[in-house]
């Protein structure tokens, strides 16, 4: 297949209208048709003369499967066979493709309609072309496997043959273009393998770390051990004498996002050489003002703050104190969770080339290229439009690569070495210590239960990180956290601790911590009320209704919540009775996040203080359609095991004198195959709602389910992560 020439390219650039719908903006300028060349129909679809259809995948692929899933939606409505389809990763170009980020499990909800409309719009143009060619009404034509058919005359013509004419057809109104009925889906809902799997098992270069533009140099960096510390002075004479070292680049700008990123980069002909040369760098940092922060200090501050009144209100209804004074029973407990790193297996890296004309070309494993583009433009003082960002496959995202620090640093180095591409690679210690950490938090929970066993009042004093009455990034919690909106008397307040650490979103951000606190605590409330957690939840949820959403989010549907709770209990054979077998325990957890409703049951064994997860049951509601069941199952099983890791395996990020102390996977252990549960069983609750994403919402409920199962097995209530009986 040859590349489309500009004169032949007749594309309908997709642009974002009203934040949701893609519309076609027809730009039809091309030479006379006739020659066999690929034709573009819309921003995403190119049809080659051999009837191969190349579909651009617009969003970053971090292992969540969108590089396969988005083209499935387009191919379905275009009505081609999946075997005809080739998939290519699009570059960053939001004007052309619409939003291109991997975050918030938003790819499915944001693209379910627009991607299908893009396919259906192109199909409509192909049908119009056939109708014109044959002089028959479009309504008399059908499509399938990349061809248009006219049943009455028995004629058939391939999309490839029609494409040169189709590109001249008027672009349809995408909001009115007919979409398939789900019962006619041939691709959506079928198990499709990951588009890159064959290349992965052959070891082909796909990832950011594999980028290798001609003449590329390598960079390693020495960063201030204390985040936000600044470069005072350095002596690079000895470094420059090391074999392979070509340049030493101090980086003293780079204040975005949140905190300074001072570093000294060593650039040369081999990463191994420049990394080794770091030992020879004499460097002094100014860490004053930042070297007083420590894990122990935060804990002491939190303890003191819990005894005071909250500094700020989060949500208030009725009079919680008065209601608690009248309650038949009052339950109170303190919960806590630590700072965590993301530890993507592919360390942060980026490759950049500062061209002679001042334009910047970047190859990056980024989850959010548009934000990175803005950040780089700001730090380097260049036009956002002067950059090209190629999105590589990403060796794990988990929210870490929503941040652009590694791209900003690389751009700074590239600017110092115009004309030479340079790849900056963090080593594991750089990566662990310069994370945007999941922030720690503390909650003092209080609940009141009336004589009937109903939950009637709730208080939460949440100690989090921030300043001036505002939580830092990813250190907030929802004011609408269930069950607050359904209770008459609620008081949720926050107090704040300062930190020099940069904070950020870790897979299912805020939910991965708050689910543990609320569902763990409600398990205690259920016990005090003489019931079990699923029963207390069903009672508290009440009749199906929509609870008010957070800004820009969807409402919480108590009926859908109840649906998955009942499904999980049925699936796991939940009886609500305590485990009769010594050392065996069963626990339940529910959570609503990222528009998905998930209820999970955990069976575990405890022997000599060691906890083994035996089986996890998952019931999920993500709407009317699971787009790729093969990947859906994989995402859910992975998220459950990721949750188990957060609950039991990962160790708290430790900070002393301002600096994070962890070095590698020895002191920040990840979960391994021998710690994996025997089975993660999945059942779906299909509801008539638009499909939503699966990268995150399966994760949060497993954490409280484990804590609650440990209580069942041992009688011990663990209220602090990581869960440990040692």
């Amino acid at each position: 297949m040859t590349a489309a020439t500009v004169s032949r390219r007749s594309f309908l650039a997709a642009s974002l209208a009203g934040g949701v719908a893609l519309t076609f903006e027809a730009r039809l300028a091309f030479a006379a048709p006739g020659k066999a060349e690929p034709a573009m129909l819309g921003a995403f679809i190119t049809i080659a003369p051999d009837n191969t259809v190349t579909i651009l995948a617009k969003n970053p692929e971090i292992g969540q499967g969108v590089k396969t899933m988005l083209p499935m939606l387009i191919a379905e409505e275009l009505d081609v066979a999946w075997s005809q389809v080739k998939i290519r990763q699009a570059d960053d170009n939001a004007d052309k493709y619409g939003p291109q980020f991997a975050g918030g499990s938003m790819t499915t909800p944001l693209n379910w309609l627009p991607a299908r409309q893009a396919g259906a719009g192109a199909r409509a143009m192909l049908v119009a072309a056939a109708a014109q060619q044959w002089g028959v009404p479009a309504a008399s034509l059908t499509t399938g496997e990349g061809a248009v058919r006219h049943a009455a005359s028995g004629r058939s013509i391939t999309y490839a043959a029609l494409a040169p004419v189709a590109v001249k057809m008027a672009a349809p109104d995408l909001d009115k273009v007919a979409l398939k009925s789900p019962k006619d889906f041939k691709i959506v809902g079928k198990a499709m393998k990951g588009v890159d799997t064959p290349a992965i098992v052959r070891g082909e270069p796909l990832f950011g770390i594999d980028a290798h533009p001609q003449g590329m140099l390598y960079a390693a960096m020495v960063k201030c051990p204390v985040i936000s510390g600044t470069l005072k002075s350095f002596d690079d004479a000895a470094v420059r004498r090391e074999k392979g070292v070509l340049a030493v680049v101090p980086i003293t700008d780079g204040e975005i996002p949140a905190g300074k990123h001072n570093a000294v980069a060593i650039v040369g002909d081999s990463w191994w050489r420049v990394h080794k040369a770091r030992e020879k760098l004499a460097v002094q940092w100014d860490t004053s003002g930042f070297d007083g922060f420590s894990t122990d200090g935060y804990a002491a501050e939190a303890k003191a703050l819990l005894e005071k009144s909250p500094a700020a209100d989060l949500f208030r209804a009725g009079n919680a104190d008065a209601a608690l004074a009248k309650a038949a029973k009052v339950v109170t407990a303190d919960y806590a969770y630590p700072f965590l790193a993301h530890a993507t297996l592919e360390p942060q890296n980026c490759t950049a080339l500062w061209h002679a004309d001042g334009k910047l070309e970047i190859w990056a494993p980024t989850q959010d290229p548009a934000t990175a583009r803005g950040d780089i433009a700001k730090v380097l003082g260049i036009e956002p439009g002067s950059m090209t960002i190629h999105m590589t496959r990403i060796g794990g995202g988990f929210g870490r690569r929503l941040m652009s620090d590694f791209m900003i640093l690389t751009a700074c180095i590239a600017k110092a070495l115009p004309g030479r591409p340079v790849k900056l690679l963090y080593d594991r210690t750089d990566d662990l210590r310069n994370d945007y950490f999941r922030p720690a938090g503390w909650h003092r929970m209080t609940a009141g239960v009336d004589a009937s066993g109903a939950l009637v009042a709730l208080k939460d004093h949440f100690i989090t990180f921030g300043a001036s009455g505002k939580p830092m990034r990813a250190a907030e919690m929802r004011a609408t956290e269930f069950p607050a909106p359904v209770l008459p008397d609620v008081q949720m307040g926050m107090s704040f601790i300062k930190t020099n650490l940069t904070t950020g979103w870790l897979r299912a951000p805020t939910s991965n911590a708050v689910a543990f606190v609320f569902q763990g605590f409600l398990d205690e409330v259920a016990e005090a009320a003489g019931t079990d957690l699923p029963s207390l939840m069903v009672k508290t949820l009440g009749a199906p209704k929509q609870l008010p959403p957070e800004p820009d989010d969807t409402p919480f549907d108590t009926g859908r919540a109840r649906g998955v709770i009942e499904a999980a209990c049925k699936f796991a054979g939940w009886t609500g009775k305590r485990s009769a077998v010594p050392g065996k325990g069963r626990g339940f957890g529910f959570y609503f996040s990222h528009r998905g409703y998930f209820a999970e049951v955990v069976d575990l064994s405890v022997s000599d203080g060691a906890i083994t997860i035996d089986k996890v049951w998952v019931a999920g509601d993500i709407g009317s359609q699971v787009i790729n069941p093969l990947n859906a199952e994989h995402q859910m099983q992975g998220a459950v095991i990721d949750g188990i890791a957060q609950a039991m395996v990962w160790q708290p990020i430790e900070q002393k004198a301002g600096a994070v102390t962890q070095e590698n996977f020895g002191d920040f252990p990840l979960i391994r195959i021998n710690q994996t549960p025997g089975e993660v069983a999945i059942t779906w609750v299909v509801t008539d709602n638009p499909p939503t994403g699966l990268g995150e919402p399966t994760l949060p409920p497993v954490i409280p389910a484990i804590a609650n199962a440990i209580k069942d097995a041992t009688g011990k209530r663990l209220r602090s992560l990581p869960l440990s009986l040692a």
Partner: protein
Amino acid sequence: MAISLTVNRKARTVDVEADKPLLWVLREDLGMPGTKFGCGAGLCGACTVILNGEAVRSCQTPLSDAAGKDIVTIEGVAASPVGAKVVEAWTALDVPQCGYCQAGQIMSATALLTATPKPSAEEVSAGMAGNICRCATYLRIQKAIAQASTAISGAAA
């Protein structure tokens, strides 16, 4: 000093420092980026290659230790009968999520099944515990090893 080794059945000579880890020789000097850098300390297994029939962490293997040895990497693993079955099972079950660790997983699984064609669950756990998958694709890794094991036994019968 030039050092010779065999990589995926091809004789290769590199003239770099003898203490340069095999991982970086493969990635930087031999243009074979399939073997991945994860931790640089032998803790994650992303850099696993097979050296004279044994799975080793190439980030901990100085070039001098690879001199004259027979190295198999992800780029060449499917050339062996066991490697081919492992790759086939990995593809059939669509094991990767992000895929970054999978080269190392496939190399460890190939070494395991070459030494132990019918591993018990415990042997799979022990043989694969050195390889971290941050996406936690472990349930499919277990299935793929079982499927490859069956295929190997079938082929041998």
